[in-house]
């Protein structure tokens, strides 16, 4: 991932969409393993890209965000209390906002 794809200011951007405590994640992978979707690195993949501010990657895989069942199991079992489920919702809002602004991208 090239330097210009990383944006340490992203947490600030995401604040508008209610990111909560997601940046506390220490990447243990618990959320991936409990997620009923059983789907690759989801949802940690999204959390990780959010931590790095790799928005391009988030938007590339944005459709995955809507697979989330919002069941809350990841948030309930997250050892860091990072509430990954809430981050997914925030990223949905962020993505919708992006689509609204740049409908053709």
């Amino acid at each position, binding site marked *: 991932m090239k330097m210009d794809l990383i944006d340490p200011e992203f947490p600030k951007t995401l604040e508008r969409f209610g990111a909560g405590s997601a940046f506390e994640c220490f990447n243990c992978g618990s959320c991936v393993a409990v997620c009923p979707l059983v789907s690759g690195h989801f949802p940690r993949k999204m959390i990780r890209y959010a931590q790095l501010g790799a928005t391009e990657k988030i938007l590339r895989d944005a*459709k995955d965000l809507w697979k989330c069942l919002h*069941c809350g199991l990841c948030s309930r079992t997250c050892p860091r209390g990072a509430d990954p489920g809430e981050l997914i919702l925030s990223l949905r*809002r962020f993505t919708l906002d992006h689509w609204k602004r740049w409908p053709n991208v």
Partner: protein
Amino acid sequence: MYDPNNIIQLIASNLRKTGNPFGASNSVINSWWKTVPLRRQGDAMLFTGLMYQSIPYIEMTTEWLARYEDTTLASYFRYGKLTPSFLVSLGFRLLVPQIQKRRFNAILNSVYQVLTNSNTDFCYRPELDFYSGILLHDLGDSEGFARHAAFVAKTLKANGIRKLITVDPHTTYAMKVLYPRVTGESFEVRTWFECVAPSGKSCAGRVTLHDPCFYGRYLGLSDLPYKILDDLGVECVRIRNSGEFTNCCGGPAESVSPKLNREVLDRRVEELNSANAPVLAMCPICLGNLLRAGIPAEDFSTFVERYV
């Protein structure tokens, strides 16, 4: 999977037009109360949020969506809002089987009966029973949700409604947690089973509960149903993933990917089957989903009604 953007736009536009995400008017969808003696006066208002009523319609849609998912036709879905022929109320009325509608309406009748039998001071005013907007929140359309919620909250408050009795976990979560945050208006929200009075009756049934995620985790309400069953003398086979750690049935995925929904559902069905006992559900989405998987699930309220 379907493009979430299209689905959100469709739902938002339906909500704007009809006040619910299904494109049929509330009065078409909400007809269960016509078979009960209506109580318009009472301390708390029964607020169904139109969820149970909508399930037959959602089932219909899902079936349709499942047929076209991952086909070239799926991309045409983005024009859904422009070709609403199958989504207008007339279409629905014709397409949705009466038997389905009756089944879900009966659940609300049961809740009504349980509340009455438990001497709950409540009323029902169909014209004030709105869809909560929860789906918009879940899908990420926070503005759409806020707009709708503001309307619902304002209307309820304007009509003097302060206390709500809810029947499903999603509406409960919306009214109890999201509304105060988004609209600034707070309601005193209870679920119907928080109103159940001990009947003193005892039966010797054996069931298992499929706890909805929202009761288990978001609202911390999952101990109560077990207690009610225990009071009734019903043996409840507790499966591994239950209560706070319940597993999702996959229901919420039905609008974007019926396929994914099916995968998750099948795993949950296996877990529920391990209990070897009749399954009780407590959420219209779960119930619809489980029924579709061929599990003869019953709603918790109709079960309780028999004994309370």
